[in-house]
């Protein structure tokens, strides 16, 4: 046995990221503001609808309709969800193949919310050294005050996050009032509580642990990496040179002096390590913990600028480029493949949404029994006819047959039917026909639903008529 007892479990070491200014920080902040703006304000956006809620985006589970601006999504459009998931997946593959973990670094909620929580921490407790000092010092009034303010603000952000999520599933203004009065449905409280708790824990306490240990995306994104993928990387050739990195000191201040002594351009200031939200040292190379947030690039560039040296000691590059092979190659078969599937999926989804008819017709043949003989010698087949008015005005439909000569359609009392706005109905249709008129035992034909107003399309649904051999 060695002198130290190996520990099977490691506690999290607190990370106190230092703030940094730069291009990538600005991009991240812009994305953050945009994402928060959309997420928190969207439920409050009102929208004129003839029939239906006046909320621009509303997921109405009870009414089984999703309202997205002028689009109303019905349960039977569920395959659009598949389309959206395919698009998101390929967008992720495409972007990752091209530029690495861009999603992780700039767009993931974990990153965005953690960023906000770190900012709150910074705002209340101060810059990195102040926060480290506060964490180390004994409990006193200052520590209690600062920590409780931090956690209180965190909880407020977490609650707004959970609350806002809930507002997407009901009429936002009235739901919020009901929620505060204690009159909202249980599901609203449960969801708000759950998301408050997870946001607080994930963005406030767990942070990089989520990315490193919990998130499956962070793991499988490495599968899409290749030698040409853009990664955030330290230029070791330049930074280490012959004798390695070295702090600034007497006789090794300028580039010329350092070159003479064989030291690289890295002055080992540690700024890139201090700004890292996952607490790694980018100079150790590509690591699974790195979410490609690019803050270390900003940090290093700040230092290089102040030294008056060339930027890019830490920067976006690829493994190929690092080996000195020209610039990163962006257009590659893999990237093109992802892009074409992406374009195809988007095209299909848009086409499908534009194809959405103002009302639906579907017909299924009753198969138990598949036919019955009638007293006048004819054969009767029954059909379950489902109609669904997706419009905000009523519609008058009449049914008829096509492609079945001499057959009669019996809709009972519902030959002509009025469908109220957003109404769904199930009707029974009986088709009667003499078997001698049939060319085949199983004859396909079409049930036609014709709306009275001429501007609406006539819908058809094909089915089959079965008669036994006479």
């Amino acid at each position: 046995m060695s002198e130290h007892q190996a520990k099977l479990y490691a506690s999290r070491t607190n990370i106190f990221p230092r703030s940094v200014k730069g291009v990538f920080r600005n991009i991240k902040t812009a994305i953050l503001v945009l994402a928060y703006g959309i997420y928190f304000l969207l439920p409050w956006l009102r929208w004129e609808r003839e029939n239906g809620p006046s909320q621009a985006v509303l997921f109405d589970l009870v009414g089984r309709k999703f309202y997205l601006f002028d689009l109303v999504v019905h349960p039977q459009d569920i395959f659009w969800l598949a389309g959206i998931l395919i698009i998101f997946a390929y967008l992720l593959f495409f972007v990752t193949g091209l530029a690495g973990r861009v999603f992780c670094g700039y767009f993931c909620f974990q990153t965005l919310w953690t960023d906000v929580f770190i900012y709150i921490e910074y705002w209340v407790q101060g810059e990195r050294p102040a926060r480290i000092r506060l964490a180390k010092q004994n409990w006193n009034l200052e520590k209690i005050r600062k920590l409780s303010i931090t956690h209180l603000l965190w909880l407020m952000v977490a609650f707004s996050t959970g609350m806002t999520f809930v507002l997407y599933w009901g009429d936002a203004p009235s739901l919020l009032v009901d929620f505060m009065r204690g009159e909202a449905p249980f599901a609203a409280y449960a969801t708000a509580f759950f998301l408050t708790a997870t946001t607080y824990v994930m963005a406030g306490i767990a942070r990089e642990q989520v990315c490193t240990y919990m998130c499956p995306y962070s793991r499988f994104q490495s599968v899409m990496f290749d030698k040409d993928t853009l990664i955030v990387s330290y230029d070791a050739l330049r930074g280490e040179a012959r004798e390695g990195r070295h702090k600034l000191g007497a006789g090794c201040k300028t580039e010329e002096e350092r070159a003479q002594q064989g030291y690289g351009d890295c002055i080992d200031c540690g700024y890139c390590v201090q700004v890292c939200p996952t607490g790694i040292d980018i100079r150790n190379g590509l690591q699974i913990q790195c979410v490609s947030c690019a803050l270390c690039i900003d940090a290093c560039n700040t230092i290089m600028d102040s030294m008056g040296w060339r930027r890019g000691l830490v920067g976006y590059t690829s493994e190929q480029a690092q080996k000195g092979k020209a610039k990163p190659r962006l257009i590659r078969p893999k990237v093109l493949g992802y892009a074409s599937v992406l374009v195809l999926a988007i095209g299909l989804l848009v086409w499908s949404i534009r194809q959405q008819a103002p009302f639906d017709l579907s017909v299924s043949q009753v198969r138990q029994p598949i036919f019955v003989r009638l007293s006048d010698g004819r054969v009767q087949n029954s059909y379950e006819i489902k109609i669904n008015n997706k419009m905000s005005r009523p519609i008058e439909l009449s049914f008829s047959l096509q492609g079945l000569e001499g057959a009669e359609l019996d809709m009972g009392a519902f030959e002509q039917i009025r469908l109220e706005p957003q109404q769904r109905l199930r009707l029974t249709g009986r088709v009667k026909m003499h078997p001698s008129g049939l060319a085949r035992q199983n004859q396909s034909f079409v049930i036609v639903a014709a709306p009275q107003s001429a501007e609406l399309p006539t819908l058809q649904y094909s089915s089959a008529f079965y008669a036994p051999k006479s």
Partner: protein
Amino acid sequence: MAEQLQNKAVQTTGHAWDGDLQEFNNPLPSWWLWAFYASVLFALVYWVLFPAWPIGSDYTKGLATATFKNDQGEEVTMGWNSRAAFIQEMQEGGDALKQKAYLQKVSAASYDEISRDPEMTAFAESLAKVVFADNCAACHGIGGTPPIVGLYPNLRDDDWLWGGTFGQIEHTISQGRIGFMPAFGKVLDTGQVDQLAHYVLGLSGHEVDPAKAKLGEVIFQGEEGGCHYCHTQSGKGLYSQGAANLTDAIWTVADVTGQNDLKDKVKLVSQVIDEGIQREMPGWSKRLSEIEIKLLTVYVHSLSGGE
């Protein structure tokens, strides 16, 4: 790796095999361990609240309960189990209450109103489908068509023995029916039965021996057979007697449509005349509630379109 080891950059578990084979230690985050403890704690709480451990032929019931009303209307509270929770949900759940309210509406509406309202019709049909499958399908078949011709009437066709209006169907379901035709083998000889069969087949347009049919007509319309008392002189039958319409293409007892040969058809019809018919449908008013019978009436009516 050896370098890393020497530099103590990598922690090992301290185990060594064959002198130098060592095991790297990549410790799990300790919150993972806490999550495990939390799930253990969850299980403990679960054991206390819900049925969990078998003890002999018994089991720990748990503290959670489910309350519902039994058939006698008494409130029953028992240890939580999925069946009791289901009954409770069906009695008190939001959707169940909504269904009940709609059921009230249907039960207050007349048959005419229901048949003109597509929503009420669809509602009645979906509920009745289940009642039908539980109570009626054993004889009438799922979907209302019995698998074998002759045993039970087909509810899908447009031929009715006892009438196909809402009122007649409801009466049939709640009171039941006894379908009876005497066995004519006792009063007619084989030749007469044969002649009758020819006549009856001829009524619905089958090609028969005209001479035999002529003789059969005399038996049918006369006092000897007396068939016209129930089947009427035109052969169209009487709802009040449950007597079949003999002039249409539908055969509810003898599977005439399944035969091609006149001889086979005559044989089947003769057998019916010879042996008579004795069929009974029980009345359901004692086993089914009023509303169930109403729903069933709407359903049976819709199977064929009714009358």
